[in-house]
């Protein structure tokens, strides 16, 4: 039977959570929150790594199975040259953006703006399926490299979790979250709280787009002002790649 004299205290709480994350037993919402924590908290991330190393021994009992001969050619066909160029391009994009160029976005999108500060209605049905409903996480960093916010997004449910650091505190402007789309251009998600963690649901209109986005960014807008859905008016202060888990 279970041992009632074996409580998990607060210190062990993090270790246990890191173990649950490595083992992947958490529910999707719990897992997204723990992933966001992993991205933001190096000590916690190290715990997850340690668990991964220790638990991986469990795979020892799994018998190897030789892949079909056509797998390697498929892998080889997908090998891209080293990736550094991409990041530079994205940075350049944002620099251009920050000085107010609009040339990059000739086509304006008939976009839906969702102001996240308002309670969203409960979505009637699951959002249209993103290509693969894998939780995305991002760490948004400032120009100086400091982390401004971590984000976790579940394309399956449209659930979005935001955890700003203190870097965003004390600014009188209102942070707005943007999706950076793979074909170029940006899509406004809405105003966000820069001072405390928050949860949102993107709903159907945006969930599909968010599943396709490859990065996110934050602009600072004047209080009371809502920018166009495809172009921030204030400076873009932070951005980060969306990583699949």
């Amino acid at each position, binding site marked *: 039977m*279970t*041992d009632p004299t*074996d409580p*998990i205290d607060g210190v*062990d709480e993090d*270790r*246990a959570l890191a*173990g*649950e994350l490595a*083992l*992947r*037993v*958490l*529910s*999707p919402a719990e897992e997204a929150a723990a992933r966001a924590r992993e991205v933001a908290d190096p000590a916690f991330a190290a715990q997850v*790594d340690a*668990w*991964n*190393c*220790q*638990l*991986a*021994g*469990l*795979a*020892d*009992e*799994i*018998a*190897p*199975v*030789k*892949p*079909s001969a056509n*797998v*390697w050619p*498929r*892998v*080889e066909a*997908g*090998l*891209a*040259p*080293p*990736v550094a160029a991409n990041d530079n391009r994205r940075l350049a994009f944002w620099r251009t953006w920050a000085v107010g160029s609009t040339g990059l976005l000739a086509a304006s999108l008939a976009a839906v703006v969702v102001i996240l500060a308002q309670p969203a209605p409960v979505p009637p049905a699951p959002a249209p*399926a993103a290509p*693969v*409903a*894998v*939780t995305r996480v991002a760490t948004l960093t400032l120009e100086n490299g400091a982390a401004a916010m971590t984000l976790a997004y579940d394309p*399956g449910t449209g659930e979005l979790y935001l955890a700003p650091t203190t870097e965003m505190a004390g600014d009188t402007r209102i942070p707005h979250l943007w999706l950076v789309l793979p074909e170029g251009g940006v899509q406004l998600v809405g105003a966000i709280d820069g001072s405390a963690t928050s949860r949102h649901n993107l709903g159907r209109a945006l969930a599909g787009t968010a599943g396709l986005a490859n990065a996110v960014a934050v602009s600072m807008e004047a209080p009371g002002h809502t920018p166009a859905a495809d172009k921030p008016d204030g400076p873009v202060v932070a951005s980060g790649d969306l990583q*699949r*888990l």
Partner: protein
Amino acid sequence: MSALLTRDELAMALGQAGQGDRAAFRRVYEATSAKLLGVTLRILADRQLAEDVLQDTYLTVWRKAGSFDASRASPITWLVTIARNRAIDRLRSGASLRRSTPIDDAFDIADDGPSPAEALESGDDVRRLNDCLGKLDDRTGGAIRTAFIEGVTYDALASRENVPLGTMKSWIRRGLMRLRTCLDS
């Protein structure tokens, strides 16, 4: 062809792959793909899906090889973790329709049997893990093994064992902490 690499050789090949060396990457694939397909197949129980995920796994490995740090993880541990997580993501994305092929049958398709050099870790690490798991009660140790090998959540484990969710969480959390204490000692 089976290319057997020691842990150090594998770590080196992975490092070279991180520099864009495709031949080194091919050696990593030859040495580890059967192990990783074993891992993804146990989770997805469908050969085609498991191979799709395997392909995706190696593309990820190619992109991330430069960030592999041999001082922090063994190469095979790092690879297994990526493959397992990718397979679980696919399983939970709903893209996989679990077929009813019994897993044991699936293994008959092409099981070359474990080769010594493909053993996951140095045998000592694995033995210690098994020793420590053996000190947990069978139910808890079994739940942790199943969670790892099949990639299932608390919810699924609780249904299978026919216990409340909270009970399953409590078993595994306590089991993990005991396991950790044992492994660290």
